[in-house]
């Protein structure tokens, strides 16, 4: 047995990965993915998220029963109604996404920090009262800044949150800033999860640095599929982690690569961009520039 610190995998193929433009996995394929990841012993599978159609919601109630080793995670916005909806699916973990940066809070959610903290408390209370394990995700943590993160850390302690996910939502972290971010929370007695994006080509490296810096849970997706340039990849991260003596993982990169080979055709987006580029209504660059310009004139 390896003697390093155990790193637990959180697979987000069916949530963040599946949101990648062009993908629409069938319910059968999603069940195949869940069973395969569960067989390998992936700790958590994030497969439930908001916006699912009624057909998907009904199907998702079966997913917990497919898992023997993994925990099913339901991803929620900072909304009580989201949490209520997720509870009906009976996952193991209710994950609530909290906007960490001021721009996400004020421009996306249109909330003050105090208001958001209040809603978070209500969401967590509801999940706790109903017996669910909870985790809190800090969206855009990498652009939140030290003062805001200090405030959030205090809030999470007050709310007795034990598990926090640090999201590099726009993939702007470097090895040093990844380490600093993770250490800031890991030394605060939180169980830290890290969610990388590959916008600068560093997702796998940053995921490894996060694990080395104290994160116990690492988000990956099969083939690294995800928004924009994707997430840390299942096999890519494992290939690095298993070479690091200080860390231990319960899935080998060879197993991960074998699974990725079998699922490659389902996760392929070959031809998608050609299709988008040939559709005149798909290029919204000028539309956005134009309407943003109009708004500025109106202001």
């Amino acid at each position, binding site marked *: 047995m390896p003697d390093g610190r155990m790193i637990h995998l959180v697979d987000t193929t069916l949530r963040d990965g*599946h*949101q990648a*433009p*062009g*993908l*629409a996995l*069938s319910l059968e*394929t999603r069940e195949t993915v869940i069973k395969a990841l569960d067989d390998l012993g992936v700790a958590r599978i994030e497969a439930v998220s*908001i*916006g699912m*159609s009624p*057909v*998907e919601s009904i199907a998702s109630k079966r997913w917990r029963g497919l898992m023997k080793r993994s925990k099913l995670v339901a991803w929620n916005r900072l909304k009580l109604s989201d949490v209520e909806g997720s509870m009906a699916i009976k996952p193991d973990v209710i994950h609530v996404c909290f906007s960490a940066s001021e*721009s996400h809070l004020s*421009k*996306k959610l249109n909330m003050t920090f105090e208001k958001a903290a209040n809603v978070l408390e209500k969401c967590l209370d509801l999940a706790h009262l109903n017996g669910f394990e909870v985790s809190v995700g800090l969206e855009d943590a990498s*652009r939140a*800044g*030290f003062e805001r993160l200090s405030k959030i850390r205090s809030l999470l302690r007050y709310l007795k949150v034990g598990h926090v996910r640090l999201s590099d*939502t*726009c*993939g*702007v*972290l470097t*090895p*040093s800033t990844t380490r600093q*971010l993770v250490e*800031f929370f890991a030394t605060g007695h939180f169980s830290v999860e890290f969610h990388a994006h*590959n*916008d*600068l080509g*560093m997702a*796998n*490296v*940053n995921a490894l640095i996060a694990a080395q810096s104290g994160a116990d849970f690492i988000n990956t997706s099969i083939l690294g599929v995800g928004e*924009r*340039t*994707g997430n840390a990849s299942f096999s890519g991260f494992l*290939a*690095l982690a298993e070479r*690091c003596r200080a860390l231990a993982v319960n899935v080998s990169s060879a197993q991960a690569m074998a699974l990725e080979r079998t699922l490659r055709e*389902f996760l392929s987006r070959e031809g998608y*961009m050609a299709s*988008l*580029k040939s*559709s*005149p*209504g*798909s*290029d*919204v*660059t000028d*539309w*956005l*520039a*134009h*309407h943003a*310009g*109009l*708004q500025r004139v109106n202001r």
Partner: protein
Amino acid sequence: MAEYTLPKQGIFFDTKDEGINIEAPLLIDATLPLLYPRNPGKVDELAPRWIELMKSAGAATVKTQTDPVYGPGDLTGLDEALFSDYKSIFKGLVDGDYTQVVFKNDMGTATGLATGWLEMGGSKVLTSFGGVGSLPAFEEIRLMLHVTGAIPLTAPSHPIRHLKELHEYLSGEKIPDFKPVTGRGIFAQESGVHVDGLLKEASLYEPFPPEIVGARRYLGVGLHSGQKAILLKCDCLELPTSPAILKSLLKKVKEKALSLGRSLTDTEFEILYFTAGGQKKTPKSATPQKTRRERTEGDDVIHLPRGRGMH
């Protein structure tokens, strides 16, 4: 063009406190000698243009096709440092005045290692565009320097885009659609959460404005679309909508995408629009105000939110 409104990105703490700081490192480009064996005629012809574009994008040194890729003093074999205390190793090398360090991408770690090297005080790094020859990708390091604020990229002449096109021509290989920085699809959006964010403030879900790399924003519709994405798509296609049409259309889009196992094309979307009760297109308006607002449903017309939109 709108002003870039986000605060400094990628900065969590003031890294100077720990002696970690990137200060205008020298990027060395070795693309030409790496591509030369593949296509000597084309490289000979276009090398001057390549060098001009690379300088414009911020390369300090651009190796010509006849230069050696590696120098006699280059130090290799440092990739394994990632699995131990890479910071101390790099710091020791910097303090010992080792400057010619080469990272390889055999484990997909070259950009991360090169960034770690620069953060520890390394003054120069050997790169290649697209990571050809298994070197750190120039464009990834260059955009890292932009988002960390070390060397902002403001070039309006889009050298990154022109370099990408030239690289594809010289190498004969298409850059993957979702390759960091240069992929054609990296600014495509489809999910409800992300399109909603795009409409409110584009920088919420973008690491840098696509304009600086000469990229375009695309909107797809499919299984993960939300109402605002459907509305935006209708707006772009000049299809008038009402709440009833929108609700029906969203449901149909999700069902269709699930049955197809992929996102929808514009044609498929328009067919669904008509089956959802939509009316045929209005003539293309001469002014943007008309395309945006004055559609035929009277009080039932719904409007897209007008956020800050661009960075």
